[in-house]
């Protein structure tokens, strides 16, 4: 009886340990005040986007996610001729150091080195299109 109980406890503890693999996700977003341009796929970011950029509606134009591998340059094609190149520089348990390059076609819009914690977000305000803004959101997930 006791041995059975210990075995169950040990198994539960082993299963409780999460399997972990870091992924980088980039999303191309259009910020607008025109109704109808709202996207449920951005529900996790809506509050932060409104707080940072002030627009009422946010539409996801494209998104891509890839697993991170230190030293390997990743290309994330977001559509609409936008691309993001991500090079992981280093990582520890909860933080990734990434080199980011955001391109429109062959034009480098911005490049940066950032440290992103798990479930943290980097938001980049990009070009203005009509009354709207193009925003890039980069996050790291496990």
């Amino acid at each position, binding site marked *: 009886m006791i041995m059975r109980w210990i075995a169950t406890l040990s198994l539960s503890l082993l299963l409780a340990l999460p399997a972990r693999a870091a992924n980088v996700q980039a999303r191309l977003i259009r910020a607008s005040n025109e109704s109808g341009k709202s996207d449920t796929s951005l529900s996790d970011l809506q509050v932060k986007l409104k707080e940072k950029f002030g627009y009422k509606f946010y539409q996801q134009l494209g998104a891509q996610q890839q697993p991170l591998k230190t030293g390997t340059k990743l290309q994330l094609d977001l559509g609409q001729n936008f691309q993001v190149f991500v090079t992981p520089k280093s990582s520890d348990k909860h933080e990734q150091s990434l080199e980011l390059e955001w391109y429109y076609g062959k034009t480098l819009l911005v490049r940066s080195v950032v440290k992103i914690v798990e479930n943290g977000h980097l938001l980049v305000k990009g*070009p203005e299109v009509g009354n709207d803004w193009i925003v890039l959101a980069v996050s790291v997930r496990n």
Partner: protein
Amino acid sequence: MKSHNIERISALADGELKGLSRWLTQRHVRHCPQCADEFARIERVRETLAACPPVVEMSDSADFFWSKVRREIAAREQETISIPMPRLSFADWLQVNRGILATVTSALVVVAGSIVMLQQPTRSGAVMVERVDTVIPNTVATPLKGAESDVAVIWVSGLEWTPDLDQMQECFDNIET
């Protein structure tokens, strides 16, 4: 008494017979020479044994012997004696040492809990922009610091305005970087 009964004669010699049995046996022994000889032989053996009682030889006097026994007991009183214990199985051991089992299990739970806690994502770190720049002329990329630690913002200002996404291509193709 018609036959020669040796056991009866021996019993007579030992004084075990009473009453009529004793009178009849005595009468037989008086008139039977064979039984009279046997009775006489038994009487001689009894007399010989009574004359030479068994003597137990001891090297010590009784008092000295008992004093030696008491001294030996006193000397061995402090000795520890190992009593062989039966071998216990692991299940028996767990039954006997429930306290140890509970302590070890609790320690395991605490250690495993600490490991799980350490592996959980922490909010202690912050999203931090270490370096940012842009190569497009008349354009500035600025990292903005906010109150929230899990969000960082880079503000790229000065980029070419376009009326819609379709015209962006033509506009940005003309930018010299």
